[in-house]
């Protein structure tokens, strides 16, 4: 490839690492893993995300041993001793204490006198849990719908594709708020299982559901193409059943697409949960989540900026972490993939 005048515009500077080493039995996933290992930036951000997740999982430990209070314990009229001084957790005018940088109320308190650091960690647990569950729902249902629609085509595809279009045409946030508000009031009652309006699974199910077309459409497109490939024909000629073909021929080829989608969907789910909670249609009190904490903080903005900055920073860090890591995964799996983080 001639690259004289603008060498930077070359797709890839020739370098020894890029040519696959002739190692016996190194499959595409091993190669991908090695490429990922060399991508320090993505690994670093991935580590950030893991650290945040670990911290949030350790929430009960922090609450019990360091902060000595739970996420829902109100301390409106209590006082706290910091460095010899006794201070009100919440002033008589209703202003909560700022960060104390000590064990109790490390990052300050909110209007109800609750420890922000404790709520941050518990809230993180909730936001992350919703992110993971929603992503699982999206990926499983999208793979099923997209796969079935793409493979069977015909009337099945028509119906499924129209349903996907329908969900997609519904403005995402509106659908989320509408479902969130009505289900928060009444819960989900489908005979087989019931969820109370307060359950965390309600926003998880809603977010998971809303993003199905986002993944299902590309999956459907890919399956439509895959099904015409030779190896599928070969499998069919061999007399393998449809289910077997889907499982052993189609799915593995979808795998890299699906793997690339996972971090992206986790990021989207966390962001959508924050948005829904801001509008009151997401996580319900008293469960904390980063979104509800930011919403409460915005209401008290000018005088107690820590109420907004703390959960906001945590949320952005976590989402950034998984986004950058997700990019790295995409790069590693598919070197011909167009989107890269600069080296």
């Amino acid at each position: 490839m001639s690259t004289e005048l603008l060498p930077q515009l070359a797709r890839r500077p020739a370098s020894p690492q890029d040519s696959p080493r002739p190692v016996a039995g190194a499959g595409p996933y091993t190669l991908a893993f090695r490429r990922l290992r060399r991508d320090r930036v993505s690994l670093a951000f991935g580590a950030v995300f893991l650290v945040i997740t670990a911290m949030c999982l350790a929430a009960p430990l922090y609450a019990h041993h360091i902060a000595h209070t739970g996420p829902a314990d109100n301390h409106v009229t209590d006082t706290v001793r910091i460095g010899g001084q006794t201070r009100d957790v919440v002033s008589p005018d209703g202003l909560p204490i700022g960060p104390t940088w000590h064990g109790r109320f490390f990052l300050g308190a909110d209007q109800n006198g609750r420890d922000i650091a404790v709520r941050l960690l518990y809230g993180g647990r909730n936001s992350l849990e919703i992110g993971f569950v929603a992503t699982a729902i999206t990926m499983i249902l999208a793979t099923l719908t997209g796969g079935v629609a793409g493979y069977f085509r015909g009337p099945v595809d028509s119906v499924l594709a129209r349903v996907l279009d329908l969900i997609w045409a519904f403005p995402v946030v509106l659908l989320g708020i509408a479902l969130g508000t009505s289900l928060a009031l009444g819960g989900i009652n489908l005979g087989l299982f019931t969820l109370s309006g307060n359950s965390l699974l309600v926003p998880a199910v809603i977010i998971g559901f809303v993003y199905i077309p986002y993944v299902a459409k590309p999956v459907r497109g890919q399956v439509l193409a895959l099904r015409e490939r030779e190896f599928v024909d070969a499998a069919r000629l061999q007399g393998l059943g449809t289910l077997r073909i889907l499982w052993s021929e189609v799915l593995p080829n979808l795998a890299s697409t699906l793997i690339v989608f996972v971090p992206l969907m986790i990021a989207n789910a966390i962001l959508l949960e924050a948005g829904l909670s801001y509008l009151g249609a997401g996580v319900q009190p008293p469960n904390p989540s980063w979104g509800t904490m930011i919403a409460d903080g915005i209401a008290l903005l000018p005088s107690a900026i820590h109420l907004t900055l703390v959960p906001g920073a945590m949320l952005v860090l976590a989402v950034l972490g998984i986004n950058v890591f997700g990019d790295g995964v995409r790069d590693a799996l598919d070197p011909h993939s167009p989107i890269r983080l600069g080296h």
Partner: protein
Amino acid sequence: MRRKATTTTGVAAIACLAAVGIAACGSSAASTKEGGTATVLMGTAPDFLDPQEGYTTQAAEADWISYTPLLTYAHASGQGGTKLIPGLAQDLPQVSKDGKTYTVTLRKGLVYSDGKAVKASDFPATIERAIKLNWGGKSFFTNYIVGASAYDTGKSSSISGITTDDTTGQITIHLTQPYGAFDNVIAFPAAGLVPASTPKTNLSNNPPPGVGPYMITNVSPNRGWTMVKNPHFASLGIPNIPNGHLDTIKVNITSNTQSEAQQVLEDQADAFDPGDTLPASLLPQIQSKASGRFSRETIPSTFYFFLNTRTAPFNNPKARQAVNYALDRRAFVRLASGFLKPECYFLPDGITGHPTGNCPYGSKDGAPDLAKAQQLVKQAGLEGTPVTVWGQTRAPRKQYVEYYTSVLNKIGFKATPKIISDSVYFPTIGNAKTGAQTGFADWLQDFPNPSDFYLLMNAKSIQPVNNENFSNVNDPHVQSELAKLNAVPATKLDSVKGEWQSLDQYTAKQAYQAVYGSEELPKFLSTRIDFGSAVFHPLYLNDWSTWQLTG
């Protein structure tokens, strides 16, 4: 009302001359001028500007100075504003001995803001209009005026219990039973006269003509409107109702209370609507920069948690007492950023019958007795009972409920909050099917009469939908007392003050509710409005007809 305003300024002027240098002197003794415009910012739009539909304070602020009823209230702050005075009527009504017939005569020569004459027959038409339009308080008419209920259900085409004579201007109202507070009922802005020909449809976007110092014009729904002076009012010479100093008052709906408060602080707008919550974050600034134009005004209101006596655990009196022992009212004051006065009795300060004795379950200003509360819950064997605590999304009510939930958990219950949207809140907890055990409730006086508050503990008010007696109080002693006390005419209220106090102390001991305070509202104006003479009415908040610009 001009006379009263001048007197206040006069007194203030003397006080200032006597004590030179007091900061408060600056505004009130300064000269004021006639005319001009003021801008009011409101965070919540009125439910309806149509006088026969409006039921919120935001609506009342506009309606009561545009639609004067037969009777109205004195344009004064504090207790003085609870005094009933004749409005469009010549005098206070003549009440028959049995308390069931009220007679008034319309003032002569009255005209509406469009110049047309006011007739006595406009009064029953106005009441019919309020009923037809399903005004939120229409039960006050249909429960007491003969024939009003029949009109409501369509069985009759007019209210038989009201007879009028257009030539003499006499109006006679027959009641189904004696009702002491009926004078207050005729003083509602919803009973503010409009022409009989006014269509019985929602006219909020183009309100009908009325009799009052101002009229509502230029309505942009959810965005605002303008009050302009009614050119025909001053010549009517109705005593004790101010003619109004300002030429126009522009009202803007903003929904961002932060910017609302900031604009008033920086003198870019003239008033912060008292119906909104002043952001706690701006309080320190307001108190330092604007101390001469900011005050907290108590209005007779009760903020409480209902304790449903029909379901567990609050059908057990020990559980209810435990709640009353455990609540720390100081916490609510903080959550309200100081805009709450701690109370424990159901009848608030400012209403005749408010008990002055000690609270039955610990001091309202001091620390709660958690140990006693926990003990009571244990004794009743109710530890671990699941309780759903209902609340509204609006701040600080959501915060009140979150605090209350944590208290319930501390004393041994398993409580979880259920916060729902404001607009569906009361219909939800007022629906018997919900079976709400406990939750937020409040009551602002409809009129300054204890019978208004005791509606909420009257067994007769219990209904399967839109119930207001959330605790489902059904107590024979309460019923027998109410039967006596509700019949006492509003003008003779002081004579039964002692009985009302005893009743209120009784219900407090029964712990039917967990009362924690009375709301305080902000009177917060710009430097352009004369603060001292601006009336803050206990019912209708900012009295725009008393505002004048500083010179």
